[in-house]
C-alpha cells in the first residue's frame, strides 16, 4: 500500500473517532448540567473542562470573553474557524477518505460523505441550534455506522490495521485527556449515601462506560473509576485496552512489511502495554493522576511519531537520499488547515 494512503487511512480513522468523542462529551456535559439543576450553578465550571480536554482554551478565549454554554457548544461543534471543531474533524475525515477512495469500500466512503453533508447542511445547523442532543446523537450514529461498515467491509490487511491504529490511538489520547480533567477532583465520596458524585458519573457516561462499570462495581468509587478507565483490560475504551489493540495492529503491520527484530513503534507500544498491565491504581495516584497522564500522553505521541517514521516516511531512506531529501517527503494526510498551498498550486493547473 502507498505510504500516503496508509497515512490518510490512519488519520481518517482518528478524525472520525475525534468527532465521536467530542459529541459524547458535549452530550454528557449537557446532561450533567441538567442533573445539577439550574439554580445557582456556575455554567462555566461545567464547560471549562471541555475546552481543556480539547486543548482549545486559548483559541476560544480569542473569540469569547466569557465561557457560556451556547458559545462553547457552537465553538466545539460547528465553528469553521476552529480547526478542532466537530465540523472540521468530519471534513478532515471525509477529505482523507476522498484521497483513498479507491482503497476503501464504497459503503465507508458514502457513510462519511453523508455525515459530512449532514453537518454542513442547513438542516444540521438548525438541528444543532434547536435540539443539540439530537444533533450529537446523529454524529455519534454516523461514527458507529462508519466503524460498523469498516468492520464488515474491510479485508483484514494493511488498511484494516491502519484503521484500527488510528481509532485506538485517538481513543486512548482522548480518554487520557478526559481523565486529566478529573485530576483535580476529590477522590473522597460525598458523606451521605444519597449524594451522587455527579462529575464522576458524567465521566463514565462521556465514554459510554456507565453500564459496563456498574456491572462490575456497584459503588461509584472515584479511584475504581480511574482504574477502570485507565487499566482495565476488558473495557474497549480503557487506555490499557486501546494500547493492547494498537500493539496487535502494529504487530501485524510489522510482520507484513517484513521488518526484522523489534521495530521502533512496536517497542514503544509494547513497553507501554506492559507498564499498564503491571501498574496499580494506587501507584498512579501516588505519582499524581495529572503527572501520570502527562507522561502517558507523551508516550502515545511517541508511538504515533514512530509509526509515521516507519511506514510513511521510511526510517531507512539511505536508498533515496540523493534524489529525495527526507524533509521533502511529507505526510499524505489531509488536516484541517494544512492544505492551502497545495490547493492553490493544484488549481493553477486548471
Amino acid at each position: 500500500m502507498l505510504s500516503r494512503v496508509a497515512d490518510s487511512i490512519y488519520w481518517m480513522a482518528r478524525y472520525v473517532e475525534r468527532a465521536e468523542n467530542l459529541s459524547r462529551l458535549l452530550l454528557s456535559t449537557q446532561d450533567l448540567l441538567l442533573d445539577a439543576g439550574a439554580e445557582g450553578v456556575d455554567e462555566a465550571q461545567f464547560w471549562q473542562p471541555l475546552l481543556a480536554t480539547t486543548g482549545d482554551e486559548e483559541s476560544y478565549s480569542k473569540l469569547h470573553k466569557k465561557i457560556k454554554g451556547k458559545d462553547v457548544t457552537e465553538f466545539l461543534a460547528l465553528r469553521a474557524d476552529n480547526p478542532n471543531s466537530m465540523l472540521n474533524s468530519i471534513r478532515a475525515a471525509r477529505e482523507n477518505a476522498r484521497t483513498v477512495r479507491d482503497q476503501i469500500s464504497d459503503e465507508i466512503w458514502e457513510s462519511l460523505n453523508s455525515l459530512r453533508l449532514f453537518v454542513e447542511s442547513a438542516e444540521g445547523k438548525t438541528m444543532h441550534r434547536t435540539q443539540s442532543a439530537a444533533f450529537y446523537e446523529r454524529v455519534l450514529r454516523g461514527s458507529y455506522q462508519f466503524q460498523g461498515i469498516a468492520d464488515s467491509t474491510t479485508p483484514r490487511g494493511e488498511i484494516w490495521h491502519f484503521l484500527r491504529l488510528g481509532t485506538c490511538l485517538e481513543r486512548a489520547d482522548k480518554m487520557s485527556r478526559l481523565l486529566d480533567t478529573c485530576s483535580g477532583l476529590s477522590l473522597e465520596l460525598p458523606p451521605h449515601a444519597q449524594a451522587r458524585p455527579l462529575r464522576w458519573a458524567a465521566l463514565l457516561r462521556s465514554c459510554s462506560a456507565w453500564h459496563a462499570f456498574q456491572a462490575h462495581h456497584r459503588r461509584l468509587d472515584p479511584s475504581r473509576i480511574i482504574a477502570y478507565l485507565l487499566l482495565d483490560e476488558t473495557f474497549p475504551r480503557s487506555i490499557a485496552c486501546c494500547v493492547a489493540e494498537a500493539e496487535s495492529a502494529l504487530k501485524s503491520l510489522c510482520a507484513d512489511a517484513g521488518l526484522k527484530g523489534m521495530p521502533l513503534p512496536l517497542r514503544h507500544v509494547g513497553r507501554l502495554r506492559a507498564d499498564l498491565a503491571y501498574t496499580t491504581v494506587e501507584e498512579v495516584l501516588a505519582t499524581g493522576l495529572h503527572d501520570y497522564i502527562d507522561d502517558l500522553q507523551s508516550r502515545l505521541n511517541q508511538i504515533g511519531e514512530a509509526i509515521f517514521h516507519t511506514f510513511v516516511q521510511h526510517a531507512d531512506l539511505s536508498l533515496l537520499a540523493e534524489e529525495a531529501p527526507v524533509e521533502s517527503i511529507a505526510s499524505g494526510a489531509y488536516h484541517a488547515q494544512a492544505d492551502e498551498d497545495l490547493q492553490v498550486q493544484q488549481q493553477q493547473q486548471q
Partner: protein
Amino acid sequence: MSSLFNDYQPESFFDEVFSKAGKARPHYGAMLDSVGSLTPSEYSARQKAVDAAFLRQGVTFTVYGDDQGTERIFPFDLMPRIIPQREWETVEAGLIQRITALNLFLNDIYHGQKIITDKAVPSELVLSASHYRPEFRGIKVPHGIYIHICGTDLVRDGKGDYYVLEDNGRCPSGASYMLENRNAMKRAFPGLLQQLPVRPVDAYGSMLRETLAHLAPDSVLDPTIVVLTPGIYNSAYFEHCYLAKQMGVPIVEGRDLIIRNDRVFMRTTKGLEQVHVIYRRIDDDFLDPQVFRKDSLLGVPGVINAYRKGNVALANSIGTGVADDKAVYALVPKMIKYYLDQDPILPNVPTHLGVDPKECAYILDNLDKLVVKAVNESGGYGMLMGPHASKKERAEFGERIKKNPRNYIAQPVLQLSRHPVFVDDHFEGRHIDLRPYVLCGDRVRVVPGGLTRVALKKGSLVVNSSQGGGSKDTWVLWDDPLDMPAETTPAA
C-alpha cells in the same frame, strides 16, 4: 401517445427522438411508452432520487470561485439517448478507422516523417503545432501506439449526419460519468433496461486495464499499473479515483513516485515498488519538471527519462497533442487516405485554416457566419460564435486572427441535433453531442455508446460541463438480443 410528450416540439432541428411533432422514431418507441406514461411529478421524483444519490456518492466535479472549491454534481438528465444498431456500427467503424490513422500519423511524424516528405500534408503546419515535441523524435514507444485512450467528440447536423468535431487524444475525461449514468439508469428505470437489448458499458474498467497492461515491457508478466492524478483538488479527481477503482489499481500523486536508475517506483508501506505503466491524467507540461515546466510540483522528476529508456510506459504517450491541434485535425481525412488508402467513414466538419491566406481572407469576411476557434483551446474556451457575437467582439477576434493566423480555424455553425430534456415539469429540446471512448491496445475497442453531453441552456450549442452542460446516458440498442457481441475479451 402519452401525455408527457404531447406538447413536445422538435421545431426546425434534427431531433433524436421525433422525426416531426408527435411522430417518434421507431427505436424510441418502447422507451416513450414507459417514460411518457409517468406524470411530471413521478418523473421528477426519480430525477431527484438520482441527483441525491450522486451527491451522497460524491459523483461530483470541483467548481472554483469560492474559497472551498465546491463540489457539484454533473447535471444529469434521466431520459437516455438511444442509438440504433445500424447507426452505431457506422460510428464504430469510423472511430476505429480514425484512431488507426491518427496513431500511424503520430508514429510517422515522431520517426521518419514520410507523410511530410511525400507532401501529403504541409510540413510547416504540422511541425509548428505547439504540442509537437521534436525532442521525442526517434523515441520508440511500446507497439508504436501513441493514443491509447481517445474521447472523440461527435455531433450530428440538421440532417442527422454524424461529424467528428474533435479527437481529444491527450487526457479525455468523462468515462466515469458514462459508467455512473448507466448505474443511475439501472436504479431509475430497471424495467426498461431489462426489456430492451441495450449494450452494457460496464466492461470499460477491465478493457482499460487490458489496454494499459498491453503497454508493459514484455519481460514483465504481472505489470504494476497506476493512475497518476494531480490530486484531490483537480476538477476530475472523482474520475481518476473511479477509474483506478474500476481497474483495481492504485491512484498515485507525483509525490508518491520516485525515480531510481531510470526506473519508476512508488513509495509503499513496505518500501519501494516498481511501476510499469502509468495512466497519467496530468498534461505533458506538468509531467516532469526536469523536461517540461520547471515549476510543476505535480509531476515526477525524471519520469520522462525512464520512459525514453523503455522502463515505464505512459498512456497516453508524450506529444499526442499535435493531433489535437485544430489545424492538424483538418488534415485527418488526408491521413486516412495516405496511410489506409480509404475515404473517411466519419467526415470532418468543413474547416477553414487561418494559416492559408485565401482561407484566412474568407474567415475574416464571414466572421458573422462562422465559429472561430483557437487551435489549442478546448472546453468551449477561446472561441467566437460568429452569429451570436457582437460587432465589437467580432472586430476584436478579427484582429487576433490577423496577428496570428496559424492559431485559428473556422467552421460553419452546425445546427447540432436536439434531444428532449426534462425542464421543470415538461420536456424541451436541447442540443447534444456524443463522446464515445476508444481504447487502443492489442486491438481497437470502442465502448458501445459513450457520454452524451447536453447544452442545458436553452438555445446554447456549448455542451461543456464548465459552461453549463449536463449529460445523458447513451443506449446502443441492438436489433436482436441474441446477436449482441460479448463486451469482455476472453482472458489471455
